[in-house]
């Protein structure tokens, strides 16, 4: 099971997770980005930037 890069807690990730998908660490609530799938690697998700939006 992958671990959170912020708190080292175990992170549950769905089997069909996609690259660049955002998951949340249940322990520290950090937003994490799936940066590799095989093996699964999580990194802290980028902070919201000024021009983000819909």
């Amino acid at each position, binding site marked *: 099971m992958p671990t959170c890069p912020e708190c080292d807690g175990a992170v549950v990730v769905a089997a069909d997770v*996609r690259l660049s998908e955002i998951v949340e660490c249940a322990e520290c609530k950090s937003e994490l980005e799936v940066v590799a799938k095989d093996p699964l690697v999580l990194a802290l998700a980028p902070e919201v930037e*000024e*021009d983000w*939006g*819909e």
Partner: protein
Amino acid sequence: MRPFAVAASRVRFEEKQIFEALDRRGVRSTHIDPRSFWDGAIERKGAAPRDDYAAVLDREIAQTRGLYLARLLEAAGVRVLNSARASETCADKIRSTLALRAHGLPLPRTAAALTPDAARAAARELGFPLVVKAITGSWGRMVSLVQNPDALDAILEHREAMPSPQQRVVYLQELVDKPGRDIRVVVVGGRPLGAIYRVSPSFRTNAARGAETMPCPLSPELARLAACAAAAVDADVAGVDLVEDREGRLLVLEVNHVVEFRGFAAAHGDRIDVAGAIADHLVAPADAEVRT
């Protein structure tokens, strides 16, 4: 058989739904992460068109990156939804207001001032309370309710201290006395799919700010205005925001070109398939080529 691509640096609920809708249709798809995108033929006149994608759905959350991605892909001969032209119009409140006005859509009273000093004069003309918005930005950020000239001065002083010249261009709008909600209509390929109310005690009723969403009847007038607004900004896929004034008249606020529809899905459940409609519209012109 070239794949259809979904470009997004952040794969959220909406992008997952779109990938799944493409999968259900037997359409081959791939993912572009705009953070690693580059184009080496930018300077080459007559460079061969790219043939790696049948079409690209631009779902990039960073509007600057999304716009240049669309521009580069279109220049390389790729069909992009939404087009760079639509993205450029929607991402700029002055451009989009001008486009909506040119198509005769009903809008709140609005002024654009090119300096903070000019904004003070524009505010005297519009009257208080009013709303000041950044000309770029989304999710209700940098949108301020201004009750009086002193509050306006405070906001404009902050604007004057900001490094970007864009922040010193000021968009002012009358505060519409709305019934605690606004309306979002999702339009795909010119067809309004449905509408939701976004309800909030705040004057900012963006779903991104926690507004509650609930189904809104899609009246013929609402459908007509939303379709017309999407067409005015050339958006194939659009989230059109409208507001009702005290007399129940509908006014168009803006059109969003990377429409988020999680709140829409929460309100309508699976009765309206936004992701499916987007997938169908993306695939339609080249349908025969890509079935796997």
